[in-house]
């Protein structure tokens, strides 16, 4: 990530005869101004490559640079999230590198100019937040043991046995627990979504992860309603806190709302 105190050594801008390409972060409108202080991957200055009313947000990167990780991912989101604070920005998939300006136009901006303009108009004044809900696993599992005699029986059978013993019963126990969790999860997730959906322009759910994941959803929200959403979720979080934890991350760039199908 850019540390900012020293000016970076700018790479040659991509073009014929250079060994650099454009690392593209996202697409925005040409009227957007990029704050001077923003630095992209490899601490490079961020440029706007304009085409009509559109602009690709990009910085120079060596084409043969080694694979990136932490620093690159953070630079990518920092650039996008910072721009998204003020302007509509449509993120481009992390790691997209183009050979030169013409390449950016030919393969990114020109083929879908109208769709991109529409997308940016739709994103105007809106922001993304990410809502995740997680069960307090011990409470969840304790409830299952208390409610389901089969689970309780299998647990008693296998709990103190050596690890090699009762393999089939362990699998069965796990399967029963997984099925029960899935049932509970569906109901809880739907209830949560029903609560937040009226406050959102779009909801994009992805599979909740892990044994205790309940919900993982990106929300596209009018900026003016973010505070209301927080208030509503605070009430929900207080109501369910004994068995569920709610986290709300953002605002951030609309990573989940650039491909159309996620829109409500």
């Amino acid at each position, binding site marked *: 990530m850019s540390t900012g105190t020293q000016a970076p050594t700018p790479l040659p801008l991509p073009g014929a005869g250079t060994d650099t390409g454009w690392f593209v972060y996202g697409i925005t409108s040409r009227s957007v101004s990029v704050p001077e202080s923003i630095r992209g991957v490899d601490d490079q200055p961020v440029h706007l490559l304009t085409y009509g009313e559109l602009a690709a947000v990009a910085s120079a990167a060596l084409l043969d640079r080694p694979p990136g990780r932490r620093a*690159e991912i953070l630079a990518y*989101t920092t650039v996008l999230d910072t721009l998204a604070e003020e302007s509509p920005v449509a993120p481009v*998939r992390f*790691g997209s590198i183009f050979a030169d300006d013409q390449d950016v136009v030919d393969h990114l901006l020109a083929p879908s100019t109208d769709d991109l303009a529409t997308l940016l108009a739709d994103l105007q004044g809106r922001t993304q937040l990410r809502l995740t809900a997680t069960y307090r696993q*011990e409470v969840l599992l304790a409830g299952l043991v208390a409610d389901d005699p089969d689970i309780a029986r299998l647990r008693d059978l296998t709990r103190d046995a050596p690890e090699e013993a009762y393999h089939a019963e362990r699998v069965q126990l796990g399967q029963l627990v997984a099925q029960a969790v899935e049932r509970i999860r569906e109901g809880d997730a739907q209830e949560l979504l029903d609560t937040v959906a009226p406050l959102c322009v779009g909801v994009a759910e992805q599979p909740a992860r892990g044994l205790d994941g309940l919900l993982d959803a990106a929300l596209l929200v009018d900026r003016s309603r973010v505070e209301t959403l*927080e208030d509503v979720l*605070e009430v929900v979080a207080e109501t369910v806190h004994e068995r569920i934890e709610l986290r709300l*991350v953002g605002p951030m760039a609309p990573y989940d709302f650039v491909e159309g199908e996620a829109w409500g």
Partner: protein
Amino acid sequence: MTVQSQSRRSGGGYLQRPAPSGLADVIEIILDKGIVVDAYVRVALVGIELLTIDLRIVIASVDTYLRFAEATNRLDLLEHGAGKPLDEFIGSMQESGASKKVSGAVRGAKKALTGGGDDDDDERRSRSSSRRSTRREES
């Protein structure tokens, strides 16, 4: 990870509002997201899609069932704690770190992504174990 430090009541709220800059969050936020250009474009920076697949645990597998069973069987504190007020009970469970062990595989996989020289051991371990998990169909 640092999530627990953001726990309920801090800042007066039950809703956790962590900054979006945590790397684990950030990775989950951007994986598989954004406008995809045609196959011509080099997605050169990371083998990130591969790692995505490994991160997602498939529920319907024997490995997963065994982990559920293990988690259920580890609830020893349950019987002793049943009479306590729920809040206190939850608190003690969290301190015991039980949930950390259970979801260790997931966090380990995340660590593989987040890199960092001091995580090398974790990284190797989580990578070799995550290879066993079933790959996602749609990728």
